[in-house]
């Protein structure tokens, strides 16, 4: 892992941002944050981070889904690794559409509360895979998008 990798954390929960940000910084990441989807999109365009950690339930409870779609539309951000970290499945029991069902253009979905060791391991793996240009592209959409 390159010590100067930048991670952008998009989450409106300041406690979560402080906790995860501290964890990532202690592991050598340059940590940037944004408290909402729109702000996060602008920062991602400006920073071109090596990794994005994205919350779903922010100002709107589905905001992160829309932000993710917009991130993938930005030229240059299509292959940026995105880990979605959200408690939406616990908070919305009726919502059972599996994140692995191929509809979510993120690289990985982790449910909150997130295991720190797993987060660090997956972050390294995804950044390394992207850098090596291996085919660990986002769980592809079944309709070929």
């Amino acid at each position: 892992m390159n010590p100067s990798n930048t991670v952008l954390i998009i989450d409106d929960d300041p406690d979560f941002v402080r906790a995860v940000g501290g964890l990532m910084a202690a592991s050598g990441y340059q940590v940037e944050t944004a408290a909402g989807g729109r702000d996060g999109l602008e920062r991602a365009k400006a920073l071109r981070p090596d990794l994005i950690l994205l919350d779903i339930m922010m100002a709107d409870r589905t905001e992160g889904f829309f932000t993710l779609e917009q991130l993938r539309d930005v030229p240059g951000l299509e292959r940026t690794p995105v880990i979605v970290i959200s408690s939406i499945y616990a908070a919305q029991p009726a919502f059972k559409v599996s994140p692995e069902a191929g509809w979510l253009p993120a690289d990985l979905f982790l449910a909150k509360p997130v295991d720190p060791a797993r987060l660090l391991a997956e972050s390294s793996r995804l950044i390394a895979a992207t850098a090596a240009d291996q085919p660990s592209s986002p769980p592809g959409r079944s309709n070929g998008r």
Partner: protein
Amino acid sequence: MKILKIPKKHLDLFVSVLPAFGELYAPVKRGSGYAFDRPAAWSDVQMAYPRTILPPRKFFLPPREATFRFDPKEGFTDLLVEAATPRVLFGVHAYDIYGLNILDRVFAQGKYADPYYIARRKHTAIIGIDFVPDDRHFASSMNADFVDTGFDLFLSDIGDHYLVLVGTSRGDDMAVMSGSLLEPPTEADFAEYKRRSSERRSASRTQVDLAALPEILEMEYHSQVWEELGQQCLSCGSCSMVCPTCYCFDVNDEVALGSRAGTRVRSWDSCLFKTHALVAGGENFRHSRASRIKFRFYHKQRGFVAEYGRPSCVGCGRCAASCPAGIDIVTVIQKIRGQADANGDRAVGTNAPGR
């Protein structure tokens, strides 16, 4: 047809899954109006809107479209593949779906089958929602306020839920993917749908009498009404631009300076434009504004009927809403009917033109 329902409180979760089927477009605010655009968040989506500025037609017959490139060295490069971007149009009103079904008659079938239009239609999912008519809507008079085909899903408000009508196998895929968000409906839900749909039809305040209108237009071909309209009309073409079923287009070859390579471009045209009926040699078959505005009304309510069996107007009210000269198709039809009765022409037949 499979029918399900979704609690309104889960609609945002359902819409979040839709981008799996294509780029999501939904009605959002645009200035003082509304437009189909990519929403940045669920809170951008306007579920209750009167009409959009431009109709959904813009996705299928874009204002400007490059159809192929040509180059003396490389030959022709067809740009058809770009038409195949998967999209989802969410929140389309019945009269707009009706308008697309009318455009299908022209572009998807028969002698003018257009591969660019067909590719876009095939790759764009349509999710309809019902609407509350305002004073400009007269879709009920045009039989376009309810539609039974042309959508993948159709959402109908029944209080705390939307009934979800599944129209196609793609719609069924969306329903299956959403899984537990959708529930089976009950008899009470169907009763509520029936109550609301007839309530909505009677809520339409603006009515237009279509009985024998094509014949009356034939009789009133030389009416003063057209001259008066010609004085009012600015020939700006706004009515054509915002109409769900206007489809006139112009074709130009745009050649790069200093080369013989270029692009063939198709772009929106309007029969209101001065040059619309101008031909090589300088003859203009509709030189006066009066003749041009008459032509547009005749095409919508007479010519299209002769060709396809129903008027191409769907009663959305966009033309009246956007006309800078305040010309309103409803008033024009009423004037023509009033004029016809004043002239003593009796209406021929008692049946309105077929759907």
